[in-house]
């Protein structure tokens, strides 16, 4: 599951990746014609809308890709960098950049491209941007109020509008396609001739149909998480599923035996968990199973993952979710923690013992009743560190 940094690709290797990505970025920008200020500002005077075409096509392609990746559980969207929203700062900064755009003819990325192929005006623009950043840094106390005002956090536009991501993606695609058609018309009016660089029928309809298919699949195929969460409410499915179980006695035995391979996932509320918890256990929620960190914990090699809750049903639901996500090395505690309490912690030696096997079990339980509470007491203050990946810090 993405992002691949920092687990699969280390932070150091990431710098090499950065250079490679940069090379592709620079190559595409230059090939698209972003290395000439005349083409760039054409957008604002109606004679060349290349920038708009490239920019919105790129934005929408990436956006739909991100939504699709998140949709099918390939990318953990809670870990990627969502540019934070500081409302006033974003607005004022954007306006200043817009002014800089029509005065200077470039934006920072394109100026670097243009400078690389020898445009002197672009080199001067780059020098200017250093001065601009320096002025801001020196005058920071002056800007600080504006810079930090109205902090809305890492909020996305669909959270603000309250729509689903897919609806928004379709909406934005429609808007972009509308803009493409409109600007083509404007361009023809201004320049007086159709833009032959853009054979509209071939590429344009291809692009639109691909986007339509994407949009439709996003509508038709529900988010994986929703599908799975729906399944756990289906009683017949819950009951027909084959679970591997672990009995109270075996769990108690393994804990007493100090078997480090046992990893208990406790699906009770945090409150219950903090009151009493078994050794070698972490508190988990259904939601956490879907995250990259949750997946990693379940994937520990050779571990025996034990799911428990007060009752068996909750553990079954969790196990079903895990199985849907591809984790099959899970055993649920038979009868839940309630059964464990009756069997071990509050064990009362019955008067009648029928078989030899029962006698053995009861002898074990009598012993376990002494040891397990000690282990619980011992582990009370040890906090199993649950690894929590932080959101990646990016931005400019």
């Amino acid at each position, binding site marked *: 599951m993405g992002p691949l940094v920092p687990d699969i690709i280390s932070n150091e290797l990431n710098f090499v990746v950065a250079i490679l990505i940069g090379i592709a970025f620079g190559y595409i920008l230059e090939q698209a014609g972003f290395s000439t200020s005349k083409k760039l500002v054409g957008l604002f005077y109606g004679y060349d809308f290349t920038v708009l075409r490239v920019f919105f096509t790129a934005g929408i392609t990436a956006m739909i890709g991100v939504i699709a990746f998140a949709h099918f559980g390939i990318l953990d969207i809670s870990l990627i960098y969502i540019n934070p929203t500081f409302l006033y700062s974003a607005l004022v900064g954007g306006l200043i950049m817009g002014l800089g755009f029509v005065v200077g003819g470039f934006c920072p990325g394109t100026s670097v491209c243009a400078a690389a192929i020898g445009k002197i005006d672009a080199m001067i623009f780059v020098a200017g941007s250093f001065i601009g950043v320096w002025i801001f*840094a020196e005058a920071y106390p002056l800007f600080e109020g504006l810079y930090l005002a109205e902090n809305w956090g890492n909020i996305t536009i669909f959270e603000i509008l309250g729509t689903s991501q897919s609806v928004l993606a379709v909406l934005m695609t429609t808007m972009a396609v509308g803009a493409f058609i409109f600007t083509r018309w404007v361009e023809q009016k201004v320049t007086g001739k159709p833009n032959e660089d853009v054979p509209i029928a071939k590429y344009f309809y291809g692009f639109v149909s691909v986007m339509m298919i994407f949009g439709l699949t996003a509508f038709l195929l529900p988010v994986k998480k929703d599908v799975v969460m729906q399944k756990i409410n289906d009683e017949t499915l819950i009951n027909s599923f084959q679970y591997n179980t672990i009995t109270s006695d075996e769990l108690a035995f393994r804990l007493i035996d100090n078997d480090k391979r046992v990893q208990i996932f406790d699906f009770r509320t945090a409150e219950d968990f903090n009151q009493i918890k078994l050794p070698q256990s972490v508190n988990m929620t259904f939601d956490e199973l879907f995250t990259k960190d949750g997946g990693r914990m379940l994937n520990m090699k050779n571990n025996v993952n034990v799911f428990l809750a007060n009752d068996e049903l909750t553990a079954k639901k969790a196990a079903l979710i895990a199985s849907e996500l591809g984790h099959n090395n899970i055993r649920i505690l038979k009868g839940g923690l309630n059964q464990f309490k009756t069997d071990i912690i509050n064990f009362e030696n019955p008067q009648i013992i029928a078989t030899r096997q029962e006698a053995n079990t009861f002898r074990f339980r009598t012993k376990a009743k002494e040891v397990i509470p000690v282990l619980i007491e011992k582990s009370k203050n040890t906090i199993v560190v649950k690894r929590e990946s932080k959101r990646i810090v990016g931005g400019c």
Partner: protein
Amino acid sequence: MEQTKYMNPYIAGVLLGLLLLVTIFITGRGLGASGAVKSGVVAAVSTIAPQHSADSKYYSDYLTEHENNPLKNWLVFEVIGVIIGAFISGLVSNRLNFTLEKSKNVTSRVRMITALLGGALFGLGAQLGRGCTSGSALSGMAVLSFGGIITMMAIFGGAYAFAYFFRKLWI
């Protein structure tokens, strides 16, 4: 030799979009440009006037984040790549030459001054916007960041609003 034609903008757009998607998938962050300029400024100031950069909040925050090595930043490496990539592209398409591109209405002197001024404005604005066209607008749009989309609309809206007053520079 003649320059090769520019790439079809829709194809370039799809390629750029896929690159951005791959970037987000691998690194968890988008593309950018102005962040590298910031790294450069912080590096320069902290080398020339270490005391001053330690006293000033904007520099010292950045230095702490980067463990006193401001150039060890993802975007610095990325922008080095951009220079290489754009150069290769210019080479294969015969677009490498030293020119000062300007409208015939303005003198070279005016073009140089406006380029410097425009760069300065963009650099300053990108600090407030927490990223430029690439880092805030494009990458922000890809992850549907509200702030990114606001910045994008402000950049393009602002440019259209001011375009009329600077038309002499271009047409």
